[in-house]
């Protein structure tokens, strides 16, 4: 019993160190990629296209829906308490600071996390990874780094779009139901928006992007030889990404409100 505990602890520590090393080499190769701008650049563009551009529609729908919901709550429920101005604070808290980055991360996990893990897993099984090594291409720099950068950039950009859609798109939708003057809406929104809100939102998007990409890459690379491992890698990528993103969210939010 004790032996088993010790063994699993050692294995856990080993895996932790390995993943840490993996993370560091991904970051290092990403920095090199930015500097070299070589072959992986094309992969980066395609990754942003897939993770960012193609996720824009669903992200916009979610953002507008949430923004519109808060707008309606603000104009009906909160007005009953004479607190309709709280709506703007709620919009900023929910869309900019809390839900925006989190939901964007969820969208990216569901779309790109699985895709990255299964794609890389499939490449390992098809010996494509070995083929890269054999021609002298480091899979981390050629496969992982552009995907990492692509996901992180997409997360940041999608978060900005989420804000754009959540704050402005929802305004347009609510106009149809209960018109508010744009000037009034905009001024009130600007009045409650603090640099910290914007900063925290972007910081979260950055952290979540790093988590999602590294976890998915790690899971993809951890496939060894059987094609049955590939879907497992996909599932694990999603599971671990969700867990870690939520954990990171809790930590960041705690730091923000307590620290």
């Amino acid at each position: 019993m004790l032996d088993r505990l010790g063994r699993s602890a050692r294995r856990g520590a080993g895996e932790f160190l390995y993943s840490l090393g993996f993370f560091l080499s991904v970051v290092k190769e990403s920095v090199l990629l930015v500097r070299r701008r070589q072959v992986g650049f094309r992969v980066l563009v395609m990754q942003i296209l897939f993770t960012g551009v193609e996720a824009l529609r669903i992200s916009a729908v979610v953002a507008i829906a949430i923004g519109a919901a808060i707008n309606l709550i603000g104009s009906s429920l909160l007005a009953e308490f004479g607190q309709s101005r709280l709506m703007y604070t709620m919009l900023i808290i929910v869309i900019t600071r809390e839900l925006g980055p989190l939901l964007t991360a969820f969208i990216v996990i569901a779309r790109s996390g699985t895709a990255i893990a299964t794609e890389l897993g499939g490449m390992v099984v098809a010996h494509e990874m070995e083929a890269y090594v054999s021609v002298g291409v480091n899979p981390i720099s050629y496969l992982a780094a552009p995907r990492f950068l692509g996901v992180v950039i997409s997360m940041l950009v999608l978060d900005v779009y989420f804000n754009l859609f959540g704050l402005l798109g929802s305004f347009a939708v609510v106009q149809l139901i209960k018109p508010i003057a744009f000037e009034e809406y905009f001024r009130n929104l600007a009045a409650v928006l603090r640099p910290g809100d914007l900063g925290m939102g972007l910081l979260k998007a950055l952290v979540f992007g790093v988590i999602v990409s590294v976890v998915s890459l790690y899971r993809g690379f951890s496939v060894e030889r059987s094609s049955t491992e590939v879907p497992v890698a996909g599932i694990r990528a999603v599971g671990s990404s969700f867990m870690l993103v939520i954990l990171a969210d809790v930590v960041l939010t705690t730091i923000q409100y307590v620290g």
Partner: protein
Amino acid sequence: MWARAVGEPPILEFRSVGARRGDFDILRDITFDLSEGRASFFMGAAGSGKSALLKTAAGLRPADSGEVLYRGRSLAHLSRKEEAQFRRKSAFVFQDGALWANQSLFDNLALPVRVHEPGSSPAEVERIVRRVVDLVGYEEDLKTRPSDLSSGERRLIALARALVLDPELLFMDEPFANLDEAASERVVGIVAALKERGRSLVVVTTRSDLVGRFADFIAVLGSGGLMAFGSYDEAVEWNGDAVRALTGRLKPRAAASEAAWGMAGAWADAFAEDGAVLESEKAGKGANVKRDADGGRAVLGDIINALPEEDDEAGRGGEEERT
């Protein structure tokens, strides 16, 4: 220490190499040297670990114990630069082709050039790719993806990818398996040409006829270890039963009749004229060897023509090694 061709510098040295899969040892304590410019064939029953040994030799799979030396340097401890050098000068032909599915055939072939010759212009890359595509005799569109190809075509392209930088050391995992007759002939011809050009070949195959045709050394693997190694005679001397069990009707090369070699024999003869063809090339008389009525020769001429700038490259490579 096992047999080694006296006086020839080893290009690869195996030092007590072991390979493990899970808790099971597939290879234990393998020690031998491979000479430069020779064709070495790994043989063994299925699951004997020959593919694992090949990948370990190519540095695609770390040795679980022991080490593999490339020109005296351990593959496990190559510097970044040395590793790049090793990758530049070696190539691996995978059993299933292992083409990159998300890239076009052209990009599959161009990537090694782009990686190792980053300064080359797109036109240059295109020229090099064309040459190697002609070499393997692939005539379809290079814009398609590997998934559009038959498995035989994929293997040809994979071979082309391995040859695109004209490696001095070529690892091949079952290069002749699952090919149609024409493709098989092509591959055999290419192997012969490479051998003739002094490239070091390390091949895993079950085609005993080709082993007899090309092998300078054979390594017989079984029961998790090396059962025999050396030239055919040496190997037989070492462990005749094991060698004969694998090679079956294989006979010593010297004893082979022209008829027994069949087509391959024609290739062997053709090599004698290899130099002459090149001479004619240099003399500007055109690379076309089709004037020869002999079909085999014509194909060979194509192959040699298409081989990327043989002599110059080799010369440059030699210098780099010395520095």
